């Protein structure tokens, strides 16, 4: 039996089949996550607000995502008059594609990644901005004033937050000495004090770096308190105002897929990926635990804070995050030099 299993795995690991298998795994992973994170979000919101959340559809409302999905799929797809039909239709596809591609390089466990690229980190950040461009396209193509304003906000918000994010990632690349996500995780093996988050001897500002990364991740995924793109009390539904049915559904799913991607990346870069906190039994379970903990914190923040003001958001980035992340970059560069000179 075990021999058969091993044989099957080896067979599936050969090139053309491997591709199909991984495409299936990633698409299923994203679909299940997007669907059930909506449930988690609604349940979580319910608990924060002293109400039970969805309970009607299935036990504990567990079939709610299915019902939501069916409802969205049953709806008519409306393209508003005067909208750029092609761009309007293409935007939901463009918003979903880069997330799926980026997830290919994320190592969920030792060797458990679709693509073992030695520039994995680079790929993620090369594909990332396409998603924002897609939201902008969707807003622009809708020919709706709210949507256009939202598109403009998305661009300036993400220009502002891409910079500190990339500075932090550069710091991490310098500290690790590699862009290979597998190796970055391998370096953090053996107990939680080896995780990048706690490696203060490499750079005393490591926790601050993580905080900046986390804030930028919230801003890049357009999550509250930085949800300028769909500030519902100002811009109705922002860039998604004119979208209905599955067009809106895909945008919605992409938001959760992006959160999964962002939290996975934070786990890989700072929380030791699949490494266990005690140095024992590393595995994919640890990765998922850490990732879902981060995702839960994202939900937690959303239902706790009011929305920031737009200029407040930009001020935070340009006046605080960028200088601080620049400083950590220079500091870790200096630390690397000093440590090398000492040894």
């Amino acid at each position: 039996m075990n021999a058969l299993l091993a044989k099957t795995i080896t067979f599936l690991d050969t090139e053309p089949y491997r591709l199909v298998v991984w495409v299936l795994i990633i698409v299923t992973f994203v679909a299940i996550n997007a669907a059930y994170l909506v449930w988690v979000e609604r349940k979580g919101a319910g608990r924060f607000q002293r109400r039970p959340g969805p309970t009607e559809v299935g036990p504990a409302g567990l079939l709610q995502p299915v019902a939501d999905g069916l409802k969205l799929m049953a709806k008519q797809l409306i393209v508003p008059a005067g909208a750029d039909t092609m761009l309007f239709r293409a935007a939901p596809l463009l918003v979903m594609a880069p997330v799926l591609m980026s997830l290919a390089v994320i190592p969920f466990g030792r060797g458990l990644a679709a693509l073992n690229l030695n520039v994995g980190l680079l790929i993620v950040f090369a594909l990332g901005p396409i998603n924002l461009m897609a939201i902008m396209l969707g807003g622009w193509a809708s020919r709706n004033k709210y949507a256009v304003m939202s598109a403009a906000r998305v661009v300036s918000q993400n220009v502002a937050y891409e910079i500190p994010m990339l500075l932090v990632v550069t710091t991490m690349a310098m500290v690790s000495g590699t862009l290979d996500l597998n190796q970055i995780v391998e370096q953090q093996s053996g107990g939680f004090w080896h995780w990048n988050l706690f490696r203060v001897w490499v750079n005393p500002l490591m926790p601050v770096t993580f905080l900046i990364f986390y804030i930028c991740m919230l801003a890049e995924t357009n999550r509250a308190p930085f949800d300028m793109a769909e500030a519902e009390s100002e811009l109705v539904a922002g860039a998604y105002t004119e979208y209905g049915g599955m067009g809106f559904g895909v945008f919605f799913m992409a938001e959760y897929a992006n959160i999964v991607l962002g939290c996975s990346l934070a786990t890989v870069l700072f929380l030791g990926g699949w490494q266990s906190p005690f140095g024992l039994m590393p595995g994919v379970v640890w990765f998922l635990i850490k990732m879902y903990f981060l995702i839960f914190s994202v939900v937690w923040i959303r239902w706790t804070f009011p929305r920031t003001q737009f200029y407040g958001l930009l001020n935070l980035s340009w006046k605080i995050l960028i200088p601080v992340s620049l400083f950590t970059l220079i500091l870790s560069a200096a630390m690397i030099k000093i440590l090398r000179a000492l040894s």
Partner: protein
Amino acid sequence: MIVSEPISPSVAGNAPHETFILNLGPQHPATHGVLRVKMTMDGEYVVRAEPVCGYIHRMQEKMGENRTYAQYLPNTSRIDYLSAMNYTHGFVGAVERAARIQVPPRAEYIRVITSELGRISSHLVWWGAFLLDLGGFTPLLYAFDDREKILDLLEGITGARLTYCYYRFGGLYNDVDETFLKGARQFVAQMRPRLKMYRALVTENIILRKRLIGIGPISAELCRRYGATGPVIRGSGVPYDVRKAEPYSVYREFDFDIPTFPEGDSMARYLVRMEEMAQSLRIIEQALDHLPGGPVMAEKVPRVLKLPAGDYCYAVEAARGRFMVRLVSDNKEIAYRLKLRTPCLSNLSLFEEASRGMLLADALALLGSLDLVIPDIDR
């Protein structure tokens, strides 16, 4: 519309200064009802915000002029449905003043208790809705949780949960029972720690403070020009409150403060309302302590009132400001003229001037801080 002069720093150098019209409402999440604001925008900056009223106009005044006073009484609680108690108080007070009816003290005390409970519940709705405008969804449900207790209390004595018709010419529909009195005491005891919690969790939140402090300043002069009252003018440093300025009912007998904040920004209006809830609790507590016995209805109030000819005014401090009823009677069963002076219309009219040059999000925070109830604007 092409504007030739640069309006705001958002317009870069030589770019053509173009504005566009943004139609906010009548169905928009921030306008809470059917208010429509026609906004001329320059990018994210408001050039001119013109409120368009009338979407829920019901001719309340005209209705008051073709039915008897008793028939019109239930209408008054539909003007501002969130502080219905205060509004019926205003109308009942005007008729009582005209007919020279002496209201027994027990009835006056119970009126004060229920009016203040109504004020708290109205402020709680505002608090939740305002934070919703600012993008924080959770406080709304906490506010409604507290409000639920008030509604349950009032339902017990009035039979209604929103549009009460509890006050009658000369007193009250019925006396309060022990359950209500005990419940009211319990509510006061429960609400104080809740207010403390809201201060710690929401008022002191850095994001909220950044969004409110210094945003949407309204000067006392502007308030005076537009006749703004209530928490709006008290947030601009003018201690004008009808309960103190021209005391009605038995408000003279209670010890309470009029919270005023001189800053005039959205935060000041926010703090005024939060502080007012605490003051209302104080009033309720005192009224419960000194609640006199006796009847709750004046004797010999005729079934169909015929007011002596004359011109009568009666003002109350509703949750949103000064609500005044002016009755002109020509000695008939039906008023010759009924004028309702509602606070929200005046409070809204300053929005156009106050919001000039603000960012859209700030302007909507300002709109939220005015605490508008649309049926109160349109009547």
